C-alpha cells in the first residue's frame, strides 16, 4: 500500500467559493429577518402607547380624533368577512380538490385545463378579483336577486359584507384547492384499496377513510386562506367596504368597515397627518394582532384534529 501516507483528510486549501456562498445565504436570511424585525419593532414601539381598551372597543364618531375614534367596527368587520369567507371557501375548495384527485380522469384535457385555471387564478391580481366581485356578485347576482324578490329598493345589488366575503373566497380558492389536493395525494393508495376491497363504494371510501386523514392538510389550506384574506384590501374595495358607517353591520347585506382599509383611510384622508399618526400605528398593530389571532385559532383547530387522529376513538 504505497502512497497511503500522502492521503489525508485535511483540506489542502481554503475553498473561497464555498465560504462565499454559505456567507451569502446567511446574509440573505439575515436581511429578511432584519426587515421583519424592523417592521414589527417600529409598529409595536409606536403603536403600543396609543393602544387602549377604549380604542379597540369604541364605535368612532370622528375617525381622525384620538379622543373620539375607536376601531371596534373595523375589528368586527374584518373578523366577520374572514369567517364568512372561510365558510364558503373550504367546502367549495375541498369538493373541487376531491373531484380533481379522485374523480377526474387524470390525463384528460379537461382536468389539465381545470388545473391550469386553478393555478392561474392564484396569480390574478387582487384588484381584478375586486372588479370581478363587483361585476359578477353585485351587478349580476345581486341585481337579479333584487329583481326576482321584487325589492322596491336595492337590497342585494349593492356592495355588502356577503359579496366582499364571497369575492375573498373566490380569491383564496386556489390556496384551499392546492392544499387539499396535496393532502389527498399523500394518503397511501393502500388505504383506499383496503376500503374498496371490503366492498365500500368510492363515496364511502372518500368520506370515511380519505377525508378524515386529509383533514389536517385541508385545515392548513384554510389557515393559508385566512392569512391571505385577513390583510387584503383590494378585493373588498369595490365589493363591500365603506369609509365610515354608524354602528356595526347587522346583516349580510350591510356594508362594513375594515382594518386594512381603515389604515389606507387614515394615511390618505387625514387633514393633520401628525395628529393621526398614533391612531394609524395602533390600527396597524391591531390588524397584525388580529391576523395573528385568526391564524392561531385555525392552528389550534388543526392541532386538535391531529391529536384526535393520532389518539383515535
Amino acid at each position, binding site marked *: 500500500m504505497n502512497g497511503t501516507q500522502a492521503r489525508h483528510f485535511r483540506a489542502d486549501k481554503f475553498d473561497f467559493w464555498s465560504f462565499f456562498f454559505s456567507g451569502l445565504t446567511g446574509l440573505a436570511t439575515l436581511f429578511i429577518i432584519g426587515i421583519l424585525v424592523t417592521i414589527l419593532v417600529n409598529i409595536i414601539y409606536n403603536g403600543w402607547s396609543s393602544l387602549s381598551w377604549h380604542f379597540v372597543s369604541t364605535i368612532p364618531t370622528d375617525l381622525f380624533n384620538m379622543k373620539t375614534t375607536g376601531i371596534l367596527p373595523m375589528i368586527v368587520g374584518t373578523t366577520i368577512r374572514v369567517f364568512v369567507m372561510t365558510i364558503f371557501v373550504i367546502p367549495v375548495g375541498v369538493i373541487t380538490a376531491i373531484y380533481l384527485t379522485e374523480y377526474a380522469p387524470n390525463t384528460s384535457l379537461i382536468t389539465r385545463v381545470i388545473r391550469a385555471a386553478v393555478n392561474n387564478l392564484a396569480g390574478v391580481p387582487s384588484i381584478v378579483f375586486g372588479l370581478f366581485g363587483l361585476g359578477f356578485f353585485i351587478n349580476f347576482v345581486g341585481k337579479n336577486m333584487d329583481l326576482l324578490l321584487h325589492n322596491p329598493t336595492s337590497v342585494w345589488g349593492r356592495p355588502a359584507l356577503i359579496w366582499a366575503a364571497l369575492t375573498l373566497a373566490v380569491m383564496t380558492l386556489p390556496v384551499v384547492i392546492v392544499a387539499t389536493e396535496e393532502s389527498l395525494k399523500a394518503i397511501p393508495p393502500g388505504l383506499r384499496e*383496503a*376500503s*374498496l376491497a371490503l366492498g*365500500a363504494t368510492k363515496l364511502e371510501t372518500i368520506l370515511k377513510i380519505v377525508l378524515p386523514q386529509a383533514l389536517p392538510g385541508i385545515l392548513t389550506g384554510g389557515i393559508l386562506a385566512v392569512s391571505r384574506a385577513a390583510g387584503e384590501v383590494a378585493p373588498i374595495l369595490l365589493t363591500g367596504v365603506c369609509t365610515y358607517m354608524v354602528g356595526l353591520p347587522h346583516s349580510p347585506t350591510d356594508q362594513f368597515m375594515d382594518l386594512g382599509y381603515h389604515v389606507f383611510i387614515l394615511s390618505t384622508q387625514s387633514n393633520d397627518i401628525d395628529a393621526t399618526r398614533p391612531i394609524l400605528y395602533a390600527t396597524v398593530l391591531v390588524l397584525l394582532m388580529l391576523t395573528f389571532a385568526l391564524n392561531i385559532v385555525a392552528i389550534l383547530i388543526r392541532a386538535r384534529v391531529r391529536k384526535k387522529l393520532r389518539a*383515535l376513538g
Partner: protein
Amino acid sequence: MAETLIQKIVAQQAPAAAPAAGAPFIRIEDVSLYYGASKALKNISLNLDEKVVTAFIGPSGCGKSTLLRCLNRMNDLIDNVRIDGCIKIGGHDIYAGDVDVIELRKRVGMVFQKSNPFPKSIYENVAYGLRLHGMKSKSDLDAAVEQSLRSSALWDEVKDRLHSSALGLSGGQQQRLCIARAIAIKPDIILMDEPASALDPIATSRIEELILELKKDFTIVIVTHNMQQAARISDQTAFFYIGELIEFGPTAKIFTNPSQKRTEDYVTGRFG
C-alpha cells in the same frame, strides 16, 4: 433431481385435499388482460376448487398478482385495463354487465402485500366492513369483531386494547388484523397478495398457520414469492411465467415432479 428442502417440506405435508365433486368454484376461462397495448395475461384458463389453498408462483412481472386482482375486480381501478375471457365464481360471470362489484368484493376478500390497517382503532378496523354492510347494533358488532379477531389468532394479543390505534401493532399483528378485517364480512374467498413478504420468519409462520386454519372455512388464493411457503401451505400451485400459465397441479407434483422444464428450473431455483 436431488431432494431439495422444498421437496422435504412437500413430503411432510398431508396429502392434498381430494378435488371437490361437481363444478369448480372459481373458473377462469381463457382470460387475457391488457394494460393499454401490452398483454399482461395471455389466455389463462384455470379451475380452482372450494376450500382449497391455491398458490400462484412465478418470477416478478409474471402476472400472478394481476390475475389475483381480476378475481375481485380490483383491476377496475386502473385506467386502460381491458380484460377478455370469462371468470366465474360459483357459476356467476363476475365480469357480466349486471354484476354488483360491491357484492362481489363482499364475497371475495383481499389481503394486501403491505399491511394496510386504517388509521383507526383495532376495533374500528374490523368493524369498518361490518358497518358498511349495515350492521349497527353494538352487541352484534362486538361479537363479530371478537369472532374475527379470534379466527385470525389476534384476540389474545389485542383484547385489552381494542380501542387503541391499529398503527401501534407490530407488522405481523397488523397483517393479521387485515386478515381479521377481511374475514369479518364473511367472504367465500380470500385473496392474499404476498401477505407475508414484509414480515420476519416468526410472524410469517404465524400467518402460515393461520392460512392453514382458515382453509376450513374459506377458499384461499395466495400469491407468493416464497416457494417454501407455497410448498408448506398450498394444496394446488399454479406457475406463471411472463403472463402465461405454465403449469398447474397439486403442489406436491409441481415441486417434486413437474411436467414442464421451466417449472422445474424455477422451483429448483435455477432461475427467477
